């Protein structure tokens, strides 16, 4: 089974969710800027990598955990991947695609805009991380739901 956490760029909310899933970030961690910046793939996925599945790790139940940048097309990509899995006879290779677009807020949007469009990386990162902290409980609940789902290996 493949779990894909997806957000616009694939390298912010998706990375935090994947890190929570894999235990790289603890539930009760203080979410310091330094801790978030050191998560694997955080902030380093480029425009040309959008749409690529990037493996972050394998969880203790054998599920491969990926991140993907899907812009605002998460739902379409989810339907596509499930459709292709069925066509290629991989129903057992279930895809759990978690579109995190609903976890975005004003600060995450502003932060990514500052980083990617204005080139203000440091200031943008501070705003973005503030936004991630604001969405953290929603992210955590989503990840807990995924962790509690049955795993088809």
């Amino acid at each position, binding site marked *: 089974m493949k779990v894909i956490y997806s957000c616009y760029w694939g390298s912010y909310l998706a990375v935090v969710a994947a890190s929570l899933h894999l235990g790289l970030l603890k539930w009760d961690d203080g979410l310091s800027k330094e801790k978030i910046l050191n998560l694997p793939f955080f902030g380093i996925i480029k425009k040309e990598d959008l749409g*690529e599945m990037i493996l972050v790790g394998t969880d203790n139940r054998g599920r491969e955990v990926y991140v993907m940048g899907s812009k605002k*097309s998460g739902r*379409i990509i989810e339907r596509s991947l499930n459709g292709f899995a069925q066509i290629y006879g991989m129903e057992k290779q279930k895809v759990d695609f978690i579109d995190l677009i609903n976890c975005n807020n004003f600060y995450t949007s502003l932060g990514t805009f500052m980083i990617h469009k204005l080139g203000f990386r440091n200031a943008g990162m501070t705003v973005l991380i503030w936004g991630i902290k604001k969405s953290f409980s929603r992210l955590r609940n989503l990840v807990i739901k995924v962790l509690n789902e049955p795993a088809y290996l």
Partner: protein
Amino acid sequence: MKIFYYCYGSAHSSVVAASIHLGMLPADRLPSAEEFKNLPHYDKTDSYEIGKPFFMGIDEYGAEIFITGMTGERQLVKKAIYSFLKNCGVDVTDLMMVNALKSVNLKTKIGGFMSRRMGLVMIGRPLTIKGIQEKYTEFVKLVENTKRGERNRLNKT
């Protein structure tokens, strides 16, 4: 082999291209409006189905023909599909993705928007057909090119 004709919403151009490919529409004359309306999925795919691939049939070389919608993010969606298949260990050498949207004109785009997005089927559907009829020879050429590519991959002359 699997061939996927893709367009914006898998309701018009991909349906027409796949239908020509499968002989459900003629390649040697202009089909009537009725022939378009009777095609499976023609102007019927809803927004919540965009992205889902639909099986249309099997061609004379045994290839399975599908249609799918990718909205305006065709490069992104295609990349995600290839990345997924690669990560699942699928050999993609027998997979062809064909963009059917490049044969579409403004009439079909406006008609499609009116029918699928605004629900004005009575006005939108005839407009999509009119647009496709105007560009029909391009659809036939697209399918001929696709079949040529298909034969090359299958090493058939």
